[in-house]
């Protein structure tokens, strides 16, 4: 039996031993399961390797989840050498050959996380334990990402985070096995504040409405710090329950509060609802303190802008990426995605696609699927050509450091997808920060836990 050749860890003896004692009928099953004859979790032995896609297909962020799924399927096609190759052709440096990963064809399994941390974790566990996923990726809320990232650390499986914007993901909750390509709230603050100052002046009075959970708080804090540093005042910061549908009772007090800017720290449906309702309250037609009243949405995506429709015109926010950029990587990805699905990709789709490629590239460079080696290959990796300019996967916190986009709602869209304009690309030197400010500990990569 192969088990004996590799030497028995104490834990494995106990696991198999107990199973054997309790039900002898069970034991043969476990030995044949194959998962026990490998030195790390789900070492691919056949000619395929499986990605586990953890996507919110229902719930508040379902729209982002659906777009991520399209992007992953496209990335997997490209990795396997099908289609036009997409970003494989422009990634610099690249070890990808377009024949799968280390010669193994890429397959995937998926799971609907329902935008709930619990369900996301159960789905990830299923994909690791039953379907043999070598890597978990996806998710579009920070709660989900942090929960799944913690699980992956315990299981010894690499997690490539999808859309998660909270400072905590690569801050106080960072993990050795978790990696984030997306930017974070802190970077939104640094990137957005100067543009706001330039457009709206330095003596503004801001009123925050904040989704009452960790992401909302970190964003509120980041934006508050950045705007107050340039001279703005904060009139009030009001927390609204996550998933509220009617914001009217939070909007009425703003009208006569003396504030002249409303900052909405909401995301997904919450933001679509709060922004639409704020506009219905006539906030954008108001005057306050002798200035035009303004609304700012620090994090915005094309999907949300589409949902908010008319209301989003002229409103400032930040994005990780936008399909309208003119570099080679963006053009290649937009074309490839558009040809496949008939619409341009969202930033969620982009980050998902890039994460899948970066993982594959790291495995190729490491020459093995063994997670600690892959982690080493990703840490401190410097690359270019993925649409965000030169990018660094920082070793200290596994956060990608790259340009941040300041965007503005398009006043005269030419199509239903043309809803945001890129106003400014904030260079990565400006939005880089000291990883120590958020604390947290990555933890060890070895010994590799066994799932």
């Amino acid at each position: 039996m192969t088990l004996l050749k590799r030497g028995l860890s104490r834990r494995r003896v106990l696991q198999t031993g107990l199973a054997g004692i309790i039900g002898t009928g069970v034991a043969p099953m476990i030995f044949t399961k194959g998962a026990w004859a490998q030195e790390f979790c789900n070492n691919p032995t056949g000619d395929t390797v499986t990605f586990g896609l953890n996507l919110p297909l229902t719930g508040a962020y379902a729209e982002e989840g659906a777009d991520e799924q399209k992007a992953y399927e496209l990335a997997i096609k490209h990795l396997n050498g099908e289609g036009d190759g997409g970003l494989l052709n422009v990634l610099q440096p690249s070890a990808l050959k377009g024949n799968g990963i280390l010669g193994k064809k890429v397959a995937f399994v998926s799971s609907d996380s329902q935008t709930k941390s619990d369900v996301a974790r159960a789905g990830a566990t299923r994909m690791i334990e039953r379907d043999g996923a070598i890597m978990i990726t996806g998710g579009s809320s920070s709660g989900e990402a942090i929960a799944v990232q913690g699980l992956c650390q315990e299981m010894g499986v690499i997690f490539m985070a999808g859309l998660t914007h909270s400072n905590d993901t690569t801050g106080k909750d960072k993990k050795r096995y978790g990696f984030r390509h997306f930017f974070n709230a802190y970077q939104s603050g640094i990137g957005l504040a100067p543009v706001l100052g330039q457009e709206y002046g330095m003596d503004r009075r801001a009123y925050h409405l904040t989704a009452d959970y960790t992401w909302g708080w970190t964003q509120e804090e980041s934006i508050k710090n950045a705007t107050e540093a340039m001279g703005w005042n904060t009139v009030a910061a009001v927390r609204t329950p996550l998933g509220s549908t009617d914001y009217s009772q939070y909007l009425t007090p703003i009208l006569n509060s003396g504030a002249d800017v409303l900052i909405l720290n909401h995301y997904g449906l919450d933001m679509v609802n709060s922004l639409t309702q704020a506009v219905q309250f006539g906030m954008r037609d108001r005057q306050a303190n002798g200035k035009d009243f303004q609304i700012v949405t620090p994090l915005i995506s094309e999907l949300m802008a589409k949902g908010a429709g008319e209301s989003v015109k002229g409103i400032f926010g930040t994005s990780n990426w936008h399909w309208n950029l003119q570099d080679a990587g963006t053009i290649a990805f937009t074309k490839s995605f558009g040809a496949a699905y008939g619409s341009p990709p969202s930033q969620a789709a982009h980050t998902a696609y890039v994460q899948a490629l970066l993982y594959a590239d790291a495995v190729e460079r490491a020459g093995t699927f063994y997670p600690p080696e892959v982690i080493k290959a990703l840490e401190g990796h410097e690359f270019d050509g993925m649409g965000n300019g030169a990018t660094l996967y920082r070793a200290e916190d596994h956060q990608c450091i790259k340009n941040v986009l300041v965007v503005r709602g398009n006043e005269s869209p030419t199509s239903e997808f043309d809803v945001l304009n890129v106003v400014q690309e904030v260079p990565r030197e400006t939005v880089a920060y000291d990883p120590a400010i958020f604390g947290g500990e990555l933890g060890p990569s070895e010994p590799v836990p066994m799932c």
Partner: protein
Amino acid sequence: MLTMPRNDLLLFLGFAIAVLTMPIWMAPFGAAYPDLLQRFMIYGLFALGFNILFGLTGYLSFGHAAFFGVGSYAAVWSMKLLTIDALPAMIFALIISGIFALAIGYVSLRRSGIYFSILTLAFAQMSYNLAYSVLTPITNGETGLQLNINDPRYLDRMFSAATPSVPSPTMLGLPLTGFTGFYFCAGFLIIAFFIAQRITGSPFGMMLKGIKSNQTRMNYTGFNTRPYTLAAFVISGMYAGLAGSLLAITDPLAGAERMQWTASGEVVLMTILGGAGTLVGPVIGAWLIKYFENIFSAINENMLARFWDFLPDGLDHAAVVVSAKFVGEGWFLTLGLVFVLIVVFLPGGIMEGVRRIASWIDRNRKSTPKSASPKTQPAE
């Protein structure tokens, strides 16, 4: 145990064997992986406890998930502050959820019927909303409460130095992951089943059933029913707390969503689906729903295409399109339909179906004893 009636003993042994051999007979259904099996055990325990309240006394609580969530939080806190060992975590969870259930039960049981349902619903929703927002220092809000490397774990620190990585829960040094975790949970499910069986058969259980059939009459006979219903409520809340702590032990995370009213609705579905008032029914209901949620929901169009492959062209495509509405993301639709059919036609749940089939076979055997043997498979 020796004094148990023979039928009870057989039921108990049958149940225990069925549970322990689950990794074998679940394999053909694609469900024999530890995480799902653990969930089968945990939610089975949850439904078993819910049934002690709803099945025996008839009080329909729409807020039971709150106790489940409180149990989870208590267990994770015990693992953060005291020790990574599972037993203190479970004891702590039992105590906290018991106190919580006592407080909520004391207030809610002043009313009955739908008012009781609304009261429990209101309490659970308040717990959920607060856990999500202002109680974040305790619950860690939306992210969920997790173990960290630098948790104090005072008891563990007395005996050993800090580990370099986040430890995973153990019981007396035995790590509770994979199949070990399953057998750990299975053990508690079997114990809990035994206790539930004893409660049902005891004078206390008879009293609860009396309350269900006619509380007014019970009151007129001179019984003060309140202490009995309250006891049932607390026991049932502790079952939920225990289940919650087991979920937190096998997967050390406690999130607020598991307290939401839809989660309470789920345990109601489980119990009704299996058969309220029976012992095995709720557990089967829980297994069925968790199976649907995890396996049925993962079926995608490719799998369906393979399944319907034998049909002629065009027809197989139509079959895929139609059946795709009921699996994958649509699994909840199937569940809803099954649930409505059961409530309308089989108010006693799956167990009533089993009983009806059994008595139908029985009748046939009696009337035509000779032709009975080939008719073991009922036509229904």
